């Protein structure tokens, strides 16, 4: 198992603590001019999202997490589960809606997502920052109203709801920011 020594500590490392994978979000080095150094890591649990802070003495080491980033293509939904295929080796994985979080709102057949595997099991799915989805249902918009500050709820083809400007019509394509869940613009077919 690969390990990281305190001199390797830096933001962005993926490490394993008590059997769980963490992403280092902050790495700090403190040391009195004459005296032993203390290395502090702030880490985010990649499964649960909780944050952990630990101190280390110089020379200590921690296990690297067997975490891999790969591309997962969304194939189909099976009951409460979502099936993805690793585009590198065609291996298929099932994730529960709980594991997906809000990502399900932006998934349609074939969507390519960033998939993080821990010990070969998927733990998170991140859809592309921007996705284009079809409007499945909304109330008709007032003709000629091009104001963007008047919004209405719109149901997208994935079944998720989003707030769009009043001029958006059924059957149109819209671009959505998956990080904020906000409407960006209409897209011509």
């Amino acid at each position, binding site marked *: 198992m*690969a390990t*990281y*020594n305190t*001199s*390797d500590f*830096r*933001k*962005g*490392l*993926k490490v394993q603590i008590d059997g769980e994978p963490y992403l280092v979000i902050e*790495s*700090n*080095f*403190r*040391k*009195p*001019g*004459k*005296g*032993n*150094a*203390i290395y*502090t890591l702030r880490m985010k649990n990649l499964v649960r999202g909780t944050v952990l*802070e*630990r*101190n*280390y*003495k110089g*020379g*200590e080491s921690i296990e*690297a*997490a*067997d*975490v*891999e980033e790969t591309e997962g293509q969304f194939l189909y939904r099976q009951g409460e589960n979502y099936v993805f295929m690793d585009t*590198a*080796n065609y*291996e298929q994985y099932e994730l529960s809606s709980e594991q997906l979080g809000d990502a399900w709102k932006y998934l349609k057949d074939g969507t390519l997502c960033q998939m993080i595997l821990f010990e*070969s099991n998927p733990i998170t799915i991140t859809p592309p920052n921007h996705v284009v989805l079809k409007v499945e249902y909304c109330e008709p918009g007032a003709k000629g109203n091009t104001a963007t500050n008047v919004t209405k709820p719109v149901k997208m083809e994935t079944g998720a709801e989003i707030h769009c400007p009043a001029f958006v019509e059924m059957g149109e394509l819209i671009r959505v920011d998956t990080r904020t869940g906000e409407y960006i613009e209409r897209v011509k077919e």
Partner: protein
Amino acid sequence: MSESRNETLPQRREVARPGADHWQPTAEWPAVRLRADLLRRARDFFHEHQFLEVETPLLSSETIVDAELEPIGVTIGENGENEETFWLQTSPELCMKRLLSAGAEAIFQITRGFRKEESGPLHNPEFTLMEWYRTGDGMEEGMGLLSDLFQRLMQTNPAKRLSYRDAFLEYAQIDPFEAEPAAYAQIATANGLAVPAQLGDEIDDWRNLLLLELVMPHLGQSEPVILFNYPASQAALAEIRNDPHPVAERFELFYQGIELANGYHELRDPHELRRRTEEANRQRVAQGKRLLPPSRRLEAAMRAGFPRAAGVALGVDRLVLLAAGKKELAEVMTFPFDRA
């Protein structure tokens, strides 16, 4: 797991340095100008006090032997027989003290120090030091001059004096000259500190943990604070005074929770220098670090006669950081180590 996955396990040092396109300085021009201004005013101060500006080697065959200071070695020579390791100085201390033995009375230097693997918001492996020595001075005079200089550079009140022991009693509720490791552990737990799993039972490791976590954040929040009378085990190259609790005549200045300067009433005894150097090397070996060459030339200088003196080293990058109201050294350095 496929074979290709095994090969892509995280490698050591997988996070790369910023690329060549990150060519710009990280400090903004006002910080660069502020640094120049502080350096000019510091030189004015030393000249007014009849200090001679000196230069000493950055690359030297000897280096300070300290359990917790890792020098960067530079190998000179082409093949095995001619190879010799020189050391980028962790501070100009050894050579400046040799100048005292050679007759210097008051000297200062603004130079670079190098410390391997010290990287963080307040550390850069290469940094700027202002270091000065004045003969005739003991700890009291050394603290006075440091306070005067700091007051002049930063327009603060005079530094408040606080003994190491009183600081621990006040901010960590522990007597650093009496307590056992178990008592430190108890204080750490009571304050919710994350204790390194391998901290062990070295009393100074515990003292430093509480210093960093509980004491330092309080130091110098209004006026600068000079901590003095350090535990004898942390004397480095300071004189030790045989009080009921022997103390090192060592002092440090803190401002806004940041350690800025370290000073000694300088050790004068060559035998004690050798004893401390050997002890530091023993600790280094115990920690799996390499042996460093003994400070033979300083020993010889001390045998020739070393005057009573006080000396101080002050971190210039941190000084600029505080003067500029910044949080990280990169904001006051043109090219920090990852862009160097």
